[in-house]
């Protein structure tokens, strides 16, 4: 009889251990995904930094009178590149300033019909549009992953062990105030 109870106790212990391992692994996997999504944002920001000099060079000839707009973009890019090693808040500030400068550039470019007709500029504009989208989608993906991770930590049965294993909720990527102002332009 004691043999049987020993087996039962052993089975229960093994099940508990296995479920511990499963919970721990799933939380680790989710955290890795969050970290990965975060670094994806960096990749896309870097891509934008690399693209801007090309853009400025190719529109310079057509927009000789818009020196200040172009300079603003170049300057904002330089600041964003410089902030890459700094704090998250500082980076976010610099990057959203760059976004603002770029959208300003495109608004000005709209006034040059001959510029819009040039195919290479169209291609470049598409690339830049896509880059802006990629950054937005990378953030969205990051936020989705954060939500999954945080939900997993907050719901039963993982909530019992999340703190025990040393997991803490990740922080969502919130849009900067300046960006929000940009988006809410009356249509």
């Amino acid at each position: 009889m004691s043999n049987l109870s020993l087996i039962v106790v052993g089975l229960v212990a093994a099940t508990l251990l296995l479920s511990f391992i499963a919970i721990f692994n799933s939380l680790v996997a989710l955290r890795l995904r969050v970290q990965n999504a975060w670094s994806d944002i960096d990749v896309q920001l870097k891509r934008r930094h690399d693209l801007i000099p090309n853009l400025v060079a190719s529109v310079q000839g057509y927009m000789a009178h818009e020196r200040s707009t172009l300079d603003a973009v170049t300057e904002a890019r330089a600041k964003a590149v410089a902030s890459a090693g700094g704090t998250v808040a500082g980076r976010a500030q610099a990057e959203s300033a760059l976004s603002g400068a770029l959208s300003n550039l495109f608004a000005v470019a709209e006034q040059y019909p001959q510029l819009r007709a040039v195919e290479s500029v169209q291609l470049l504009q598409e690339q830049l549009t896509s880059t802006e989208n990629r950054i937005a989608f990378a953030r969205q993906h990051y936020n989705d992953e954060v939500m999954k991770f945080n939900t997993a930590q907050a719901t039963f049965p993982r909530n019992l062990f999340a703190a025990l294993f040393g997991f803490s909720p990740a922080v969502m990527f919130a849009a900067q105030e300046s960006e929000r102002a940009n988006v809410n332009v009356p249509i």
Partner: protein
Amino acid sequence: MATQSSSAVIDGPRGRQSFFEAQRRNRHATWRLSTVCVLAAVVMGIPLALAVTPLLYAAALLIADLINIWVPLPASLWQHANELAHYGSVALASLTQSNAANPQALVIGAAVLLLPGAVLSIVLWLGVNALFRRAGAGGALLALQAREPNPSELKELQLSDVVQEMAIAAGIPAPKIMLIDTSAANAAAIGTSPNDARIVVTRGLIDQLNRDELEGALAHLVASIGNGDLRIAFRVAGVFETYGLLLALINAPFGPRARRTLWRIVRYSLIGKKHAEASAAEAAAVADLLTRGAAMETDDIDDFFNTTARRKSVLRSIRNFLFFPIFLTNFAIKLSLWFFSFSILEPSMALLWRKRKYLADASAVQLTRNPDGLAEALRKLNDTRRAIPGGAWAPHLFLVNPAGSDRMDDPRANALHQQMLAQMWTSSQPASGSALSGPPSNLASFPSVMSDIFATSRQAIAGDPNAAARMMAFRQAAADALGKPVNDLPNLSDFAAAQNGDKASIQRLSAFRKQISADSSDANSTRSADSSLNFAGFFPSLKRRLRRLDRMGAHVELESARVKPAAVIFIAVLSLVLAPFALLALGLLLLLIGILMLASLAFLAVWMAFIHQLFLMFVHR
């Protein structure tokens, strides 16, 4: 500039049902349904195993007998064989007699009867999966006609950008993009897993959709890849290919077709092909052969036993008599495959796949945060031609049903024709860009070239000398390109003559028209029937997909076509009346299958005993 995405992140869903909720529900539904599908496949496998196992035993006995001639096998082996046969017969007897036998003997008997066939089926399934994993599922034929998008063309750059964006949003590696030059509008995700996934898009799709709609359409495919649909599709195809392979193995002794199929599989698995593309095509061809083998088609074994077609002879009758058990087994297997796949497997799989489509739609909304894009794309695609040759092989992988249109034509030939015509038109253009023909025609936009040609010819007939000269130049270019004498092609005067009823002119015109219409019919989109008519189809109807997107916040106008209660009552009464008959028919079919199985088993047993005795006599002599 598209900044809609950054604002949508903040907005969140506007709809009555969030896309997270929709995904959760559809995911749960697919879990339930895939359990049903696996059960169905197992149920389907039982008669198969029951039919294949005796053949395996027969083959084993034959081999043992042959070896026994030269090297006498130990008596204990024959003893064991006898015991196995005993257990099997006990299990079989308990089927027909209600008195329960010893339960242990029953279990062993069932194992004896089922296990070898089941093991063989599973091994074959694993083998088929491993074999076709290299080539990718289904869409290999599609990929053959495709090219990579050209990054220096705005629309095609946009396509690859959008795919990249969606892959980022989904957090998967960006799938490779293949472009097919046809005016039909459709797209598919092919491959076996997210790592080797490819997205096939037609030129017609990117021509017809704007950036938001393109984003929605591609988000569906990327989401489908991210959700693991490709793996499911691959496994399911593997099940059917395994059934086909089993049938081919059984048929192999009887005819060239099954042998050829087997030989191709062996050759492909051992050697493969040098080029990846040719290899993929070979894999697709082999897989196609296998799936068709599993369908109820006449094959070698029917030809083999078809005595009416050939002259009768005593030898042939004896041979037919000897091989009759195998014929019976083959027929029983086919009948049960057909019965179970028709009644259980296919409906549940179709239902499962429709749920996967809804799931991908909901995930697409999560990726784009813009349900309107996908809704508009679906609506537009529903109104256009979307059939793609080569797509018939893997129709379930598409965004919208590629079988929606009745016409199937070869896009490569078509694209070539179109390109040729457009080239002729542009090359015949006067060097000093005349105001008449406008800007140089783009080779890609075939419809605009056609309308250009028709407009100019109308002007020429009306008496415009510029247009007439343009048409004559085109005529010369066409004659050069087609390698025909200029006088064979219709002249301008032919038009005038035809209006007056000149027969030769009319004939020449109609011949030319036939040639052109072969090219231009592609440009005229044919409105096709709604796929919702197909009950067991792999695609949900447009209306249902739109309704779900509407629930997630899309702004679609749904015609509130409420079904009349009278119709519902009529259908309910009809199905109540018909249901017993349908059940009776199903039961009778099952009974028939069972009887066939038992009969084939009995024949096989008698036959094998006879042969075994012959061998024994031979050995003892």
